[in-house]
């Protein structure tokens, strides 16, 4: 097990979420940067969807209750094990009683601390993820929590280290126009694709609020609420877009001008407040088939 000594701004348990429950109003949730969670689990020989700790802007400290094998992925925060400096994206051994500390990452926002065997808290509706909007799943971590670790999987780690480029300073995200592009003026999409937006401090696991040029609507009537996907750029009447992340609402009532591709939603989840974001039209992969 792991004992939580410090949490930083926000630390939650996350796996790949709870798909399949949208019709009763339950969103997918899960790791905001799913690719980083998967990588951490692959490094350890875990099932890709095993639960890990999602650490927002570092600041986590845990003590190992027994000898453990761990990996840290995502935002490249400095990692120490009982004061020894260790690397990210690497397989690390931690002896019983040793403390693992994650410092503030110099770039990126969310890091993943995974343990061989996975964090084994009780699943809720089939997942160990904390959905901060719906209030489903385990509470955010608090100092003094103890987290059980599951049995080690049969597979062994096959590499020690994964080469991972750090998140870029200037983030460029691929988008596909639609589904409600026609609710905006002809220029709105061009504005979105040629402007620089800034991530505001009003951003969390639900969504990322952006500041920048307004995206003007061509119709003022109300859109009946409709289903939403992660990556949707929803534009409320104030005309600044919100990019939906892991804990986004199942449905929404504002038009979506464009959707960030699934691969780039992970990169979006690493954007920090104050960072600049640009959007570019994704190559149409289906046309190449």
């Amino acid at each position: 097990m792991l004992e939580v000594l410090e949490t930083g701004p926000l630390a939650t348990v996350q796996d790949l979420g709870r798909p399949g429950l949208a019709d009763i109003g339950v969103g997918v949730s899960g790791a905001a940067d799913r690719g980083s969670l998967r990588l951490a689990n692959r490094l350890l020989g875990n099932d890709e969807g095993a639960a890990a700790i999602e650490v927002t802007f570092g600041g986590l400290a845990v003590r190992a209750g027994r000898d453990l094998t761990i990996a840290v992925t995502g935002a490249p925060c400095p990692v120490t094990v009982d004061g020894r400096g260790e690397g990210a994206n690497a397989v690390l051994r931690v002896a019983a009683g040793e403390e693992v500390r994650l410092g503030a990452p110099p770039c990126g926002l969310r890091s993943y601390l995974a343990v061989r065997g996975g964090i084994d808290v009780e699943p809720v509706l089939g997942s160990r993820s904390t959905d901060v909007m719906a209030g489903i799943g385990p509470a955010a971590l608090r100092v003094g929590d103890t987290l059980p670790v599951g049995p080690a999987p049969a597979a062994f780690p096959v590499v020690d280290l994964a080469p991972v480029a750090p998140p870029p300073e200037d983030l460029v995200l691929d988008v596909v126009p639609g589904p409600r592009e026609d609710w905006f003026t002809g220029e709105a999409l061009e504005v979105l694709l040629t402007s620089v937006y800034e991530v505001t401090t009003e951003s969390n696991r639900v969504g990322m609020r952006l500041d920048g040029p307004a995206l003007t609507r061509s119709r003022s009537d109300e859109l009946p609420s409709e289903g939403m996907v992660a990556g949707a750029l929803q534009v409320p009447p104030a005309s600044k877009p919100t990019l939906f992340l892991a804990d986004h609402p199942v449905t929404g009532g504002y038009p979506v001008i464009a959707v960030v591709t699934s691969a780039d939603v992970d990169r979006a989840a690493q954007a920090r407040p104050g960072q600049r974001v640009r959007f570019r039209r994704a190559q149409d992969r289906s046309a190449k088939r």
Partner: protein
Amino acid sequence: MRVLRCADSGLLVELDDLDAVQALYAALSSSLPEGVTDLVPAARTLLLRLDPTRADPAEVERAVRSTRPGRNPRRSGGLVRVPVVYDGEDLAEVAKLTGLSEREVVQEHTSSEWTVAFGGFAPGFGYLSGGSPKLEVPRRSESRTRVPVGSVGLAGEFSGIYPRESPGGWQLIGRTDLEIWRVDRDPPALLRPGVRVRFEEVG
């Protein structure tokens, strides 16, 4: 039918009305096309969420277009009786808006059978349709920051029950003690699409 792409993550199918949404939802839920993880029915649309590693949006779109609308799932999901104390803060306002007396509002609400059309506002919340057209009222002009759990409300053609305390803009006409959402129950939501609902006045 209009099919709108949500990048590689979804297809938003726009339909004529709630009945068409229900019919397509019924047909697709019995056999999900490859790579579809979730169906999200709403008032005029059905969203198909895709697993981008498994789904080809063009293939899924073809599957949707060749799907024959299913039997309407209304009246297929069992009956839930909901005991209600009709003392909501907006009951007088609803009476004024509908031109009915408060007693008549209660009578209209309890005399017809409602059906869960879709969810989505919060875990366990069901948009109930099929009630008396006399009860159609707009949302409140100001949303409340705190609506107590169990509040029974009206908005547009729908009625609904708040599964937990949350902000909300519906016109509140009463409250129920029935636990419509409990995460440790199977299923956690009493009000799933297709379930029929009868409101009964108590107290």
